[in-house]
């Protein structure tokens, strides 16, 4: 009995064919990684339209530099480096607030988060409110910590993969994640402290 089936190539096979000019392989690579790229961009930009723009820009850059991709890292980590760079660039261009130092959180923190803090955490928040709250907290991280945290938590990259994406040591990844969590814990305390 003949049946319908789908054949799947590895990333390496797709890349080889893509570099050789095979558009179907390019499309397949896009389908595979567009969602994780989007999620990382969204976490960094907190806006669907901006995140889609960042992903599009990242894929164009990736396509342009594809022939130079030497395979020293995986395609995923390579792409996510481009995506996170594109997201941060877009954020800067569109006037998103950059990280504030812990000393400067003060008033700015209250302006951004306070309206969301008043509701009793025990009552629960809608998902969109929770997302806005998390993004508000993320903006208070220095860019390096924010990027490291998002790559680890959203793209589910291991320490080693995050280090690969950012071109830093695993120790630096661990250190950034630690400090990022410390800050987020402070900023999101009403929602994560045990009841």
């Amino acid at each position: 009995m003949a049946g319908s089936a789908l054949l799947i190539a590895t990333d390496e096979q797709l890349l080889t064919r893509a570099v050789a000019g095979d558009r179907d392989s390019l499309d397949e690579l896009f389908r595979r990684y567009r969602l994780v790229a989007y999620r990382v961009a969204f976490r960094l930009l907190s806006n669907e339209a901006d995140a889609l723009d960042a992903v599009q820009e990242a894929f164009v850059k990736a396509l342009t530099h594809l022939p130079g991709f030497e395979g020293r890292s995986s395609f995923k980590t390579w792409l996510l480096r481009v995506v996170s760079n594109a997201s941060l660039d877009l954020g800067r261009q569109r006037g998103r607030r950059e990280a504030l130092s812990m000393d400067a959180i003060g008033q700015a923190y209250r302006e951004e988060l306070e309206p969301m803090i008043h509701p009793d955490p025990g009552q629960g928040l809608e998902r969109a409110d929770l997302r806005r709250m998390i993004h508000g907290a993320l903006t208070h991280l220095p860019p390096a910590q924010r990027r490291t945290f998002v790559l680890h938590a959203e793209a589910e990259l291991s320490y080693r993969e995050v280090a690969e994406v950012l071109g830093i040591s695993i120790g630096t990844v661990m250190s950034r994640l630690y400090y990022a969590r410390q800050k987020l814990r402070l900023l999101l305390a009403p929602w994560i402290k045990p009841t």
Partner: protein
Amino acid sequence: MSSHFDNDWTPGSDLLAAYADGEFEGRDELVVLRRRVEEWLGRHPRAQEELAQYRKLRQLWLATSPAEPSSDAWSRMQVNLQRLCAQSAPRLCGRRRAPWAASALVAAACLTVVITFQSVRQPGQTNGLPVINLSSNQNPFPVVGEREVTILRVNGDDARSVVVGVLPLQGLMDVAAKGDVTLTSMKPHGRSNVMPNVHQRGPDAPMMIWARTDSEPEK
């Protein structure tokens, strides 16, 4: 209970973070270190509370995962990408894959895709609610039987597998062993897929997921 470890030792913040991230999981070479951290945590309730908050933070993060954009949004992006690609990297955006080249797709991507279930052997039923006793012979995880599940759709796009058969399928879905499915030819199907013509052993095999292995494809 006395500790095996030096009571003056304190794990650094990096180590605790790695522990919170599950970086010690499944790593035999870190078993001793993991135990040391856990033993230290046992003596430091405040640190345990911090760890619990890290985990809560993670749950909060997962609960706010961004929703996927609509298929229209993806389609628009794909059209834009093709246009921009043609402008900035025309050599890359040239041609479609030739049908014959699809056979190169059937190269080794190591995978095992298995979804298995069989006729259930019904555990003994009790009247009313069962007693919750984890050490008893009760079966806390009864498995669905052949007539109790229907597979409606399997997406092989993101999986390294070949899905053969017709859906929906009630009952048995099996993994094809080597030799059960023979690839006879390939033909293009749609823009980016290929459809193999396959011969399945046995007329009653309604559904198989052909588990790709590192071996050469069947001829």
